[in-house]
């Protein structure tokens, strides 16, 4: 019988200029933007309606948040460079750079957990105030996205990287997709940090 294959899994379609997964990830990110957009809108609505609202810096640690911001921005950079390394056929450099990305993400999570620990230690739970509720919900959901990114990147760094030997172009595409997702998660944090910690 027919052994028809799905077209445009690797090469781009002539009129859209995209391969399937690249369009797919952009659509997925559009949906994610709506998810976080809804949470940011809720933040605004709740804050506008609140009698009093604490300044973020009076509850949260700005230095820790700023440090985490630096970590995530650096990890986005290494993610991008790892893709660039693959484009230059430098697999070894790719391994190192993607490895650093994963480590930076893990470090981010550790700092985040420490921040949560500091709050819990002072009995500052989500149920204590609307500010803490939205802080824990938004950063928690963001942390879930970080974990998702770590899982995907670790797979692509480890067992998934065998594809480099058989289908290098497709593997490079996968790193590009993972990178787009990672940049998005980074971008969300770039909004979360000022909104929650500084404003």
């Amino acid at each position, binding site marked *: *019988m*027919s*052994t*028809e*294959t*799905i*077209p*445009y*899994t*690797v090469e781009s*379609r002539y009129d*859209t200029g*995209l*391969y*399937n*997964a690249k*369009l*797919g990830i952009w*659509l*997925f990110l*559009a*949906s*994610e933007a*709506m*998810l*976080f*957009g*809804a*949470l940011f809108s*809720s933040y605004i*609505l*709740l804050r506008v*309606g*609140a*009698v009093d609202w604490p300044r973020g810096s009076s509850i949260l640690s700005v230095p820790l948040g700023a440090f985490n911001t630096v970590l995530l921005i650096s990890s986005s950079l290494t993610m991008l460079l790892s893709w660039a390394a693959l484009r230059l056929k430098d697999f070894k450099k790719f391994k190192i750079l993607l490895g650093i990305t994963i480590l930076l993400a893990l470090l981010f999570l550790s700092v985040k957990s420490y921040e949560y620990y500091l709050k819990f230690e002072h009995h500052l*739970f*989500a*149920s*204590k*105030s*609307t500010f803490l*509720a*939205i802080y*824990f*919900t938004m950063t928690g*959901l963001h942390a879930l996205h970080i974990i998702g990114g770590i899982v995907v990147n670790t797979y692509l760094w480890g067992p998934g990287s065998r594809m480099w030997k058989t289908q290098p172009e497709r593997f490079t595409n996968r790193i590009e997709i993972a990178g787009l997702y990672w940049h998005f998660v980074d971008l969300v944090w770039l909004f979360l940090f000022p909104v929650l910690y500084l404003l």
Partner: protein
Amino acid sequence: MSGELQHYDLPFWKKYIFSQDHKVIGIQYGITALIFLFFGFLLMLLMRWQLAYPGQPLPVIGKWFGEANMPDGVMLPEFYNQLGAMHGTIMVFLGVVPLAVGAFGNYLVPLQIGAPDMAFPKLNMASFWVYFVGGVIMLVSFFVPGGAANSGWTSYPPLANIATTGQTYWLLGMVFLITSSLLGSVNTITTIFQLRAPGLSFFRLPFFVWGQLIAAFLLLLAFPPLEAAGVMQLMDRVFHTSFFMPTGLMISGQPLDISGGGSVLLWQHLFWFLAHPEVYVLILPAMGIVTEIITNNSRKPLNGHKLMIYSVIFLGFMSFIVWAHHMFLTGMGTAISTFFQATTMIISIPSVIILSYLFITLWGGSIRFNTPMLFALAFLPMFGIGGLTGLPLGLSTSDIHLHDTYYVIAHFHYVVAPGTIFALFAGIYYWFPKATGRRMNELLGKIHFWPSFIFMNVIFMPMFIQGLAGVSRRLYDGGASYDFAQGVLHLNKISTHGAWGLAIVQIPFIINFVWSIFKGQKVESDNPWEATTLEWAAPNCPPHGNFLKPVKAYRGPYEYSVPGAKKDFSPQFEEHT
């Protein structure tokens, strides 16, 4: 995301259960959704008994539901509320949308665009199974302490926040259903953009594909806010935050131990931001199906094909800025009400354009009155009634009287039940030969159609009258304890008897469906309806990969009765006709 599609020696469980073939997944969606539709309908039959005969024991089967729900066969208000909430949830999220988008979209979109499969077969499989798990969670919730969710399908806080455990299950179930529709919509949009056959430009796409494309965009962008709201309500219920709990909330005279400062309106905004586009997710695939069937059976080109496409795109955009017309009575302010009233009036225009063009397409056609066509034709006036009765609800002044009455129930059921569900029936009859190689029986089809058509109106028409009389929609006794409702109470019995009738006349359909799979009249041709779109180029029961030879589109999708052509239809896939 494997690019290879060579199969045929797959084990049973891979071919039929964890299949990655869009056609098998489409049928899985279809069967599951039909079962959920039937289940949701049974919930409603129970409620209709209570509405027509409030406080009377349900004979024979009443005892089956347990002392906690129906002691001595008499329904408790708590159980009635569960049935109401779950009827809505199941019908919308587990029945109609999965059937319209999951089943028809999955099965037909790749065929109609000449693709070998969906763009992401594994994601497609995941999408179905995530939906399945979501459905199971919803069903399981009936058996937890306190029963299933009972705060209405809209789950308004603070009621939903303090409701029994079933509400938590409802939220978890919704998270799964939202994830499923996210995966599905990414897949559908990518497939339509990337896998169109050569020559199939966007304006040569059948209107059905356009309907699916816009519906997928709505699912993609409107569902996440509900997911955010669901997460917040979960936080409220599990971690006792106060996203939706205002300061100073009292329950039974006791102040609640909460931090307060939340906003109940916030939930309503986030919920309706999804739930209004969701209405168009329900209706656009139905419009697509009806368009295919009406053009085919009137043997005429679709009038205003391009304008219909522009209309559906415009409809998609507008559907994101009309949501607050569900909230005129919440006191959100006259300026906001006026804005949403204006956008609501504007969004009715593209729907009217689409419906008008479908009517004009009939004009002067040589119409074949087969079963799919009858259902498709019935869709037009039924959706028309549903749509037009929506206008008084969209005007903030008349909505004051009609809000949350049976008028609303009648309005949206006209859109969804004799509207969308009739279109889905039409689609089942129409594409049955492609999926099975056999036709469904025409006589049984007509026995299914005519009484269904009558009973649908018997059920829902009286509700307009009750609603105008002011009977509120969520009354456990159907209004029996209210003075003003006495004059219209007898209509409850008419609706209930109509519902029984509707249940009985679904039997010919079920028999026809099952019997025709095995014994139906075989179709000789791959194109039994003499249609023009690409799915008819594939062999019946299309193999994995769909088409035996590469397909190419040579013309638009609805070229019927072209002057000078040898036959009255010029398929997209034939170069010379």
